[in-house]
């Protein structure tokens, strides 16, 4: 389970990479993509859309489910990763390279976990499942 140390994480399995205090890039973690299975479609917001911390801003479709993706921060979408519309499998192949959106004008954020905290959280979730 790949959990890069330089990123922040949410309990809903998104990763966040800050670029200054008011800009960030968001994607799905390695654990998320492995639980979802092969992704076949990604529904992304448009540049200019507002996102609110804790609310769904996107959804991803695998063969077994359509799952919401939650915003870790409140802000405005600067850019959505158009590559994913034709090649959603990139999220499975390289979850930390296949970013979903870049958000700017960030005004608030959810409680974010460090890599260690996220790793512990994932271990607990896995234990609960078995």
């Amino acid at each position, binding site marked *: 389970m790949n959990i890069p140390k330089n990123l922040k994480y949410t309990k809903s399995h998104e990763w966040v990479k800050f670029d200054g205090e008011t800009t960030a890039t968001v994607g799905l973690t390695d654990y998320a993509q492995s639980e979802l299975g092969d992704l076949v*479609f990604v529904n992304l917001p448009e540049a200019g*859309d507002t996102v609110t911390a804790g609310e769904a801003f996107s959804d991803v*479709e*695998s*063969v*077994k*489910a*359509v799952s*919401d993706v939650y915003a870790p921060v409140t802000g405005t979408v600067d850019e959505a990763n158009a590559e994913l519309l034709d090649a959603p499998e990139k999220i499975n192949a390289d979850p930390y390279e296949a970013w979903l959106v870049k958000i700017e004008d960030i005004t608030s954020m959810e409680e974010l976990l460090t890599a260690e905290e996220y790793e512990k959280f994932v271990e607990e979730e896995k234990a609960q499942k078995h």
Partner: protein
Amino acid sequence: MGSFVSVTPEEEREMLRKIGADRLSDLFSGIPEELKLRKELSLPDGVSEMEAEKIVRKMAGKNHVFQSVFRGAGAYRHYIPAIVNEVISKESFLTAYTPYQAEISQGILQSIFEYQTYICELTGMDVSNACVYDGAEAAAEAAAMCREKNRNVMLVSETANPFVISVIRTYCFGNGMEVRLIPEKNYRTDTEALKSMVNGETAGVYLQNPDYYGSLEDVSAIGKITHDAGAKLILGVNPIASAVLKTAGEYKADIATGEGQPLGMPLSFGGPYLGFMAASKENMRKLPGRIVGETHDANGKTGYVLTLQAREQHIRREKAGSNICSNEALCALCAGVYCSAMGPEGIRKAARSSVSKAHYLSDKLSEIGFERTDQGDFFHEFVTKCPSDAENVMKLLSDHDILGGLPLSGKHRGEILWCCTEMNGRAEMDEMTELLKEAKKC
């Protein structure tokens, strides 16, 4: 019906023995005693098959099936080839349940896939679902497909079938969309009014072609106005008419819907009918309900499955686009067999025959005081005035076993909506015209 035989008492005892139970009531031991009903249900004694048939036949005898039908308004009497009933009566089709388990449902899945293919060919669209309950529901589901974050208003033409408008309103009430009616102008959608109504809040525009009055609409103009405003075009179509008119796909509609009853289903006093839905590729993932896909199994052989299921309500739950979880599989099969039996040329013939007969009748009626109230092009339905009381005219025709056109209500009260299909013969039309000459004295 060879495969279904209920269990014998001996087989029941054997099954109970196998699972270690003494009697059937042991299987319900998990239910608290105080919740169990300790008496027989208050129902009358059963009757024999012979007695039951007598009772039902008496009820059915109350129906009057007219010899001649000149009424449409949403459901149409077309000829149904005998092979349709032959195929749908096959036990494996007639009694089959939903094909959730693909491995044992290839026959059903293939038949639905072929139905979907026919719908795409008729409508000129990219993808079709496995059908919904009827044409009205299809229109309502299509409206829901058009919802977007800031677009929540559905514009529906007043020239659509009033039952369809009613069902669209019901569904939009449930899903929070607002419905606004585009006014009618001379039996067609008022495109000038549409221009002023459509804006950045409009999710979609719905109209049908031919419309409720049988008139041919200016779909190109309406499509342009709709798309220029960033909204989606939903076109309600008649499946037989689609064989000869410009298709929904050619009009660049985003979604095509319609009542599939003309494709091999009898009038049946209103149902069961068939709602078909087809969409462009961009709108594929928004289609509600079941969709059958074609794929390959592990050995490379062609196989069929239910696909895009993650979007359906039994998986996506409250976030699904629709709560539908069923379809009209047997009716879809009727349509599939009808299309196979008729072929493209057969359906075109039925369409052309319907058009030409309607135009013949229209000319005959206008000679005796039942002039058309509209001068534009029509398909196989048209509206005339009535030189006397419409209800009395219908009574006169009914006494001769003829179901005349539909007396309209509302702003067209006093007018009659007539319909012809390939089943109306020239002699039949001439006879009715003679009768109607008398009607002027009603």
